[in-house]
C-alpha cells in the first residue's frame, strides 16, 4: 500500500472543527454530519475538515494527544522501552502531517509537535529495522507486531516481505527435491 493510500485511510478519522457557517444536518453515504453552527464544535472526518479549512470555513481543534507535554511522554516511553509502545492514534503520523500542513495556525507549538512526532517515528522505525533484521536472520516463520501502525508497516513491509520471498525461493531451490521450479514464462 502506498503512503498516499494510508493517508487516504487516515482522512476517514474524525476530528473536531469549529465552523463559521450554518448548515443543516447532512446525510452522507457513510453517515450523518452536522448540523453546523457558527462557533459550535462538531466532529467531521479529517478529509472534510481539511477541505473546509482550505476554504476558510472552519478552525480545527487538534486532538488531545497533539500536545507538547503528552508527546514528550510518548517519546520518552518509546525511547526507554524495547518494544513498540501504543500510539495515541493508529494514524498519529499522517494526522500530524496533515494537520500541520493545512492547519498549522490552529495548532499551538506546531514546530515542537512536528519534531516530537518525528522523533517518536524515527525511534520506532529504528526498532522496526532491528526486528526485521533479527526476523530474517533467525529465519522466523511468525512475528507478532502489536502497536505498529499501518504507515509504519507499509514503510518497511513491502521491502521485508519481498526479501523474505526471495530468501525462501533461494532456500527451497537449495534443498534437494525442493518444490520450487522454474517457470516456462
Amino acid at each position: 500500500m502506498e503512503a498516499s493510500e494510508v493517508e487516504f485511510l487516515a482522512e476517514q478519522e474524525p476530528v473536531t472543527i469549529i465552523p463559521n457557517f450554518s448548515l443543516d444536518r447532512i446525510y452522507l453515504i457513510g453517515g450523518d454530519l452536522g448540523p453546523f453552527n457558527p462557533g459550535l464544535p462538531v466532529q467531521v472526518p479529517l478529509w472534510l475538515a481539511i477541505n473546509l479549512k482550505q476554504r476558510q470555513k472552519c478552525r480545527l481543534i487538534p486532538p488531545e494527544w497533539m500536545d507538547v507535554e503528552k508527546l514528550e511522554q510518548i517519546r520518552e516511553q518509546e525511547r526507554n522501552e524495547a518494544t513498540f509502545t501504543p500510539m495515541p492514534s493508529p494514524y498519529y503520523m499522517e494526522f500530524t502531517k496533515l494537520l500541520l500542513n493545512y492547519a498549522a495556525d490552529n495548532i499551538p507549538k506546531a514546530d515542537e509537535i512536528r519534531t516530537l512526532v518525528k522523533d517518536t517515528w524515527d525511534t520506532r522505525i529504528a526498532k522496526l529495522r532491528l526486528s526485521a533484521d533479527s526476523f530474517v536472520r533467525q529465519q522466523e516463520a511468525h512475528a507478532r507486531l502489536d502497536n505498529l501502525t499501518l504507515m509504519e508497516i507499509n514503510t518497511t513491509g513491502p521491502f521485508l516481505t519481498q526479501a523474505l520471498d526471495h530468501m525462501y525461493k533461494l532456500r527451497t531451490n537449495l534443498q534437494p527435491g525442493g518444490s520450487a521450479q522454474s517457470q516456462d514464462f
Partner: protein
Amino acid sequence: MFCEKATELIRELHRASDGQLPSYNEDGIRQVLEEMKALYEQNQSDVNEAKSGHSELIPTIKFRHCSLLRNRRCVLAYLYDRLLRIRALRWEYGSVLPNAVRFQMSADEVLWFNQYKKSLATYMRSLGGGDGLDLTQDIKPPKSLYIEVRCLKDYGEFEIDDGTTILLKKNSQHFLPRWKCEQLIRQGILEHVLS
C-alpha cells in the same frame, strides 16, 4: 549455437525499460521458428536412424529436443511479455493509442489489443446500471475536490460533471475536478499546477 536468436529476443525486452514497448521483432521470431523447423527435421531423421540401431544418436536427439523446448519457451515468453506491456498501455493511454506506440505492435498484437479493449469495456460497462464504471480513472486517492491545471495542447471542448463545458486551449489554466482530468494529465494534455 542453438537458441541464440531466441535468447536475443529475451534480451531485447530485458533491455527495454519497464513499460516500454520496443518494436515487434518479426524477423527474430521467424528465425527462431526456422531454427526449430530445422532441429525438428534433423531429429525426425535421426529418430528413424536410432530406431534402426544407431543408439549413439540418442544424446544428440535429446539435446536438440531441449533446444526446441528452450526456443519455444523463449518465443512464448517474448510474446507474452509484450502482451503484458501492451495491456498496460490501455490503462495508461486509454483506448486510443498514440501512433508512435501503435507502430511498435505487430498486426496480431493490434488484434489482441482490440479484443482486450473490447473485453475490458464490456466488463466496465457491466458495473452498475448506467454507463458502467471506468476503472482506468481514479488511480490515485482523491486529495481535494479541485486542482489547478495548465493546458499543454489544444484539446477542444471538455464537459465537466455539472454539465458545463470549457474550452481547453494551449496555455490556458483551469480549476477542474481532479477526477475529470486525471486521464488528460496522463495523456500529457493537461499538467497539474502545483501551487
